[in-house]
């Protein structure tokens, strides 16, 4: 193992939500990990961190850099997820108004994590807690994530493709 560090995340601590993800991002930069991989990992970490803040009491996020991959385990104590299949459905959410006012709770958290990483596992016991384990392989090529799955959530694909090309010149 090249590097390992554990971070504690407290449920309800919106004020510090995102600090663990940004801290890990800076560690990854120092370790010289490829920027596109750092970004994918940071998206997963940020979503996982906010999930703990919104839905759990407390969690340990363990970040490990192995020779061939970055592995993250987020083990929380909290309400757990009664129906994981439902929670993995883009757009499905139990978020409160306050969570949404913080910019999260769009029902994209778990799907977003899954689409950003190379390996993803979620285990949950209702009333006890949830453990997420995900891996970003250091040799993974750009474009090999499950990104297309999450794009299906967006209803106006054709318009989005048009928009990418920029406005017409008149």
């Amino acid at each position, binding site marked *: 193992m090249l590097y390992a560090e554990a971070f504690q995340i407290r449920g309800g601590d*919106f004020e510090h939500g995102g600090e663990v993800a940004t801290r890990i991002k800076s560690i990854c930069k120092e370790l010289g990990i490829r920027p596109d991989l750092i970004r994918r990992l*940071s998206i997963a970490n940020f979503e996982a961190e906010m999930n703990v803040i919104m839905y759990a009491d407390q969690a340990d996020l363990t970040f490990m850099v192995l020779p061939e991959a970055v592995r993250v385990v987020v083990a929380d104590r909290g309400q757990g997820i009664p129906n994981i299949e439902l929670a993995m459905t883009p757009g499905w959410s139990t978020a409160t108004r306050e969570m949404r006012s913080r910019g999260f709770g*769009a029902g994209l958290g778990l799907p977003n994590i899954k689409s950003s990483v190379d390996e993803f596992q979620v285990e949950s016991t209702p009333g006890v807690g949830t453990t997420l384990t995900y891996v970003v392989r250091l040799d993974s090529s750009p474009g090999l994530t499950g990104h297309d799955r999450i794009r299906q959530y967006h209803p106006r694909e054709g318009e989005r493709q048009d928009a990418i090309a920029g406005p017409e010149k008149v």
Partner: protein
Amino acid sequence: MLLAEIVTLLGCTELLALDQTGSREIAGCFAADLMSEVLAFCGHGPLLVTGLTNVQSLHTAEVVDAQAILYVNGKRPDAEVLALARARGLPLLSTPLTMYEACGRLHRGGLPASTKQRGTAP
């Protein structure tokens, strides 16, 4: 489009003085109030347009390597967020325009959308 041009185009207030970052080239734009949508759909290194002024807007900008954040509807983040942005060297702008108006002007001015391409990594 240069950041300084965006300031002029939208009548922005510079919440943090741009200094040299005014000449920063902005290649694309993404607008949303839900940060999960930014994380899910935004391309790399955009101008982030949002009405969300809390610290999560800053952390989200960090994750997507945003070049700057533009707050709409005249919104301004609190002193703590400003201090963090200053420490990170992230320019913050505020415009009195609504999100629709701001995005409309930016698009008409030639700034394309910054979105993830199908089949590419986030």
